[in-house]
């Protein structure tokens, strides 16, 4: 059974179909969440909350073909929500800007990736993750972000500009 059929069945309330659908994409969802928060436990929390919400709101998914786009959007919204909330807490506690980086052990590469991504605003980060890491087309990225293609291109342009500056240091 393909994803479209599974999504169709899931929309009708078939929990097993929903579980199977999520199984196909759960690693992708985790990687996306992790790219925002750079912390294993937080990324797991975000995936958990996103899957829960997706299940509750399945009926709002108008077209089963867009299941992937739809669930990625939920994960990204949850991740950004998490960062906003965390940012407020961190500012209050005045303990710097290393939001979410509480893992005791982290490879240098992951820190570099996080450092590079840290230079991007949330929209730019989303475009880089979806376009270059998840290989979505610009049109698909625009669908996930619910923004016009032109706006997405502007984000991409800004992201690449910022990254070129930043990556020069990271990957020299």
């Amino acid at each position: 059974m393909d994803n479209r059929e599974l999504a169709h069945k899931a929309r009708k309330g078939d929990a097993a179909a929903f579980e199977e659908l999520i199984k196909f994409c759960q690693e992708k969802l985790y990687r996306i969440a992790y790219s925002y928060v750079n912390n294993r436990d937080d990324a797991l929390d975000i995936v958990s909350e996103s899957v829960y919400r997706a299940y509750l709101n399945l009926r709002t998914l108008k077209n089963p073909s867009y299941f992937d786009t739809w669930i990625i959007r939920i994960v990204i919204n949850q991740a950004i929500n998490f960062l906003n909330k965390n940012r407020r807490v961190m500012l209050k506690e005045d303990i710097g800007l290393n939001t979410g980086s509480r893992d005791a052990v982290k490879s240098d590469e992951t820190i570099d990736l996080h450092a590079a991504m840290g230079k991007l605003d949330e929209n730019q980060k989303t475009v880089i993750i979806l376009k270059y890491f998840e290989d979505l087309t610009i049109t698909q990225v625009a669908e996930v972000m619910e923004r016009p293609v032109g706006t997405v291109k502007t984000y991409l342009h800004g992201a690449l500009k910022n990254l070129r500056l930043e990556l020069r240091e990271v990957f020299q």
Partner: protein
Amino acid sequence: MSSIDEMKTIYEDISIPEELDSVVKNAIRRGRITMKNKKRSTGYFKIIGSFAAALMIFALALNTSPAFANSVKLLPGGETIVRLLTFVGDTAVGGEITDGQDIKDIEVEKQPDNEMLTIELYQGMEAAAIAGHFTITQITHPYGIEVGLAGVRAFSAAENFPDLSEMKLFDDIYRLVTLDDSAHRFVVTFKKPVIVEVSEQENPARLIIKVREDKEAEQLAPMYSLRTASMPFGEMVGVAENILEFELGSENARLLQDINDLYFTEEGLYQTIAEAEARLAEIKQYEHFTFEMFIEKRESGSVPGFLE
């Protein structure tokens, strides 16, 4: 290797925790439990609501109340039936469980002592015979009604709401986000306190909402609204409403439009600022609710303010 490719390699090497499977399964289990509870609670509500309304109508009919008798018209051939509904508390319910209707058109009419809003329901290309199950709830702060229709998949009337600029009682009409593609909701606000009368018509299906000024209405005290910031029309206000209602037990959670035509989710109205603050503190404890909440003092008849 280019820098982006390097980054992609690091991204692909992000290790997947073993617990991911169980985390996902637990989230789905949690979703199933919430859905079951949700279905159960709305089911009871509908049964109790419809039963109460039916009982009231029946009792009125039995007693041949003049108000009821005057409002029930059986036209020759039995085509059109108009039934006056009774508010039980703040709510009137009616219609039948159906699916696939369209809120086709909403019209207003001004008469010397009242104003009338007519909602026309269609099934496909033709007028529906009986309205889908609906709930009309009277609200305050601001004065208005919230109309919810189930079994409705389209809301054509939202593209072309009636012009209310000449109206003395109707103030505004706007659609609400509903995270359920088989239901639609909208709000009608009033400029002053009114007496609302709802009639349900069959063949063709119409809801007729008649309002007249309530000159004896007591001035309501200002209330403290615990609410989110103003947001554009979209899923987010609906998500906030769902979490408040189903996870935080906020029975009076609702959506409203602010003075700038943006939307917000209101957790509830409180008589004192202390009560609102106490509830705010409770909500802050719940980590899955990430919307920032504010307390807004609001007069009974005023349009909610814009909050960033």
